[in-house]
């Protein structure tokens, strides 16, 4: 990428100061791609114009040169801001651009990243459920949701407190030896792990599916026996 000199930066600042903007209300003035530059107007429906009076007087060649200079102003803080966008460039059709934008905004609504749906099964339940792990910020949140989802099927401590108890090693064996349910998950390697050992973010990234097992079956997944568990499966 071409490097930008002080003069060019200054030029850009001056340009920005003198320009008039007509943006959509509430918007930052930056919309998908088709922004106008240098007085050339695009014919998109969302009119977002930057009228640059200064540049209009220059010849086309100079415009081109200015554009060239203005492109390379890549500051990290404004990583994907459309700085010197030209109408219709890159030549990607608007329906394709807008679809990708919709997808992106959908995933961002989900909490910073693509939706992360995993199946949740529970021993004894007649059907599976699905949860989007990105909807939750911590194990606590997740347990709460799971508890609500499967509350009709458990007789034991499948509420969030029960699961939190499970995290506590001192209560662990009591819990496991009972008929309580224990949340487990299958990770990317195909191993069945106990939920709660790793940081939440890492868990979300590595969890393929969840299974709420009967406590007796989950004994082999107790925290102290994690290594054995890995070796076994």
């Amino acid at each position: 990428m071409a490097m930008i000199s002080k003069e060019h930066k200054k030029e850009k600042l001056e340009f920005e100061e003198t320009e008039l903007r007509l943006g959509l209300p509430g918007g930052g003035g930056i919309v998908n791609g088709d922004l106008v530059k240098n007085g050339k107007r695009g014919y998109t429906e969302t009119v977002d114009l930057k009228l640059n009076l200064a540049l209009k007087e220059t010849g086309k060649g100079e415009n081109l040169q200015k554009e060239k200079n203005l492109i390379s102003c890549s500051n990290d803080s404004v990583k994907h801001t459309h700085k010197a966008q030209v109408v219709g460039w890159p030549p990607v059709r608007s329906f394709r651009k807008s679809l990708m934008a919709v997808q992106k905004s959908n995933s961002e609504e989900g909490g910073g990243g693509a939706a992360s749906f995993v199946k949740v099964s529970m021993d004894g339940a007649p059907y599976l459920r699905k949860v989007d792990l990105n909807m939750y910020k911590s194990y606590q949140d997740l347990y709460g949701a799971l508890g609500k989802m499967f509350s009709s099927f458990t007789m034991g401590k499948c509420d969030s407190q029960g699961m939190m108890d499970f995290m506590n090693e001192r209560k662990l064996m009591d819990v496991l030896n009972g008929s309580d349910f224990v949340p487990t998950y299958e990770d990317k390697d195909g191993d069945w792990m106990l939920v709660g050992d790793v940081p939440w973010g890492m868990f979300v990234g590595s969890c393929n599916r969840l299974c709420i097992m009967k406590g007796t079956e989950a004994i082999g997944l107790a925290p102290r026996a994690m290594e054995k568990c890995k070796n076994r499966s």
Partner: protein
Amino acid sequence: MSEDEELPDLGGGATPNSNSTVVSIGGGDQNYVSPGPDQVLENVLENVLCFLTSRRDRNAASLVCKSWYRAEALTRSELFIGNCYSVSPRRVTNRFRLIKAIAIKGKPRFSDFSLLPPDWGAHFAPWLRAMAISYRALEKLYLKRMCVRDEDLAIAAHSFPILKELVLVCCEGFGTDGLAIVARECRQIRVLELMDSVIRDNEVDWISCFPEDVTCLESLIFDCVEAPINFEVLERLVARSPSLKKLMLNSYISITQLYRLMIRAPQLTHLGTGSFSPLEIVAQGEHEPDYFSAFAACKSLICLSGFKEIIPEYLSAIYPVCGNLTSLNLSYANISAEQLKPVIRQCHKLQTFWALDSVSDEGLQAVSAACKDLRELRVFPVEALEDAEGPVSEVGLLAISEGCRKLQSILYFCHRMTNAAVVAMSKNCPDLVVFRLCIMGRHMPDHVTGEPMDEGFGAIVKNCKKLTRLAVSGLLTDRVFNYIGQYGKLLRTLSVAFAGNTDLGLKYLLEGCPKLQKLEIRDSPFGDSALFAGLHHYYNMRFLWLSACKVTRQGCKEVARQLPGLVVEVIAWNEEENGTSEDVDTLYLYRSLDGPRADAPRLMVRPSLIMLGKALFNYRAGFPLAALKISPSSCGFHALAVEPSPAA
């Protein structure tokens, strides 16, 4: 040859139909007169010409003599109009009487990228008016980049009772209202395909408008219709369409709904999968259907697309069909290389593959390893931004060239490229017919050597002897055009942006490429003297587009003056309404038998802006103003008076 001189000339006057009958014109049946030798010849000719299907062959046949011209005109049943303004509908319907299938293309391709005002033209209505009278037996209608209104669809549905195929590509101006009318009225419709079109949601349940009995639908493509679909009705429609082979759903169809449709139509060959996600966050009380087995049941599936909002973990459901696929379109699926690999490695028969650059170079390497029969590849950008660190580069291109030796067509968006990779592709893939490389940063050089991309594209035109379509990008000097002019002898379509240094660039092209039909150039420093270099060739072209170049109004006028058979459309910025600035923003010229069009858009002036007006001029040298058939008051645009050329 000479016996027909007294009959109507080629100008398109009405040709009496009685030429083709055997019985004499004058009397009743008792006065049978045996046909003269001319008549026999024409009858024989017509019978023979019926077998000519290629339009190029037919065009050639029609030029032999007037007799052949007439016979050909009476027997042609398929018509292709490459530019809707090159000829008037009236002239067409006067010449061809028996048309059953017609394809009409409207706006130039750069209109897809917002380079033309939305009301620029390419209206279907005038064509429809003429066809509704003359082509009542129309069976197939194909429109590309045309403005089609709901009323037009209604009129078409009423006027063409045996319409079987309606295909609208990159069209706009209509909505689900229009679709409802088509569904309801076109009782014989077999093919209804809407592709890449902008369709208004009038909140009409158009799917419900299909007749209740068994349909003859073979193809239903509505993936671009951004409107909710009544699923239960769609399901019943699919169930009563036993001939349905192609079904492409929009993103309002969830994967569970897709499942239900698939089990009703296992005979499908082409499937557009819709959203390919559950759409609900948690499926309420529902078992997850066995998508895998639904795909397994579709034994004829060869073409898969859609995946508009894909949840990547569902992709494994398509494994059963991968081995049979010849076409896979993942260009809406934002998936990684890791997610692509298990799918693509099973697609041994794949010939067409479209993807997003999210698959990265690594994903393309997997394609290269698995898809040895690949003919067409398109890689689109997830983020169409110039200054980004894209995930695909010369590495992916090189890998494809090494693995997919039969490649014929490629469209590749990237942020960085090298000449070496392009040269390698030119040598590894000699069958290339279409090479479109879009390096998204303007004026980007070879990112390794820092040199212009001239040598890479030069190698393409030199080594790919079958090349007919080329799009260039990156930092390019006049040299690349020299190469193209020298070697691009079969080139028909060329797309140029932000390239070249001087007029020489365009001159090389216009002087060197005899087959050039469609030339679209933007933001390149080509001026009037380059424009004049093509005067010998413009009549042989479909169009020339120059935007943000250096041509002047004077230059455009001169071209119009010298070539009366051209229509020269100019869009220019004026500071005042009657500006005399020489600046030309867009030049679009094309040959036309019927002069400048009367439907040019009105001037648009928005009072909220500082005075910026647009003026659209039509130049038609040699005709007095009256013959232009326009008046400033009716169309609201300014026509320049030009001096009649003495030769006219």
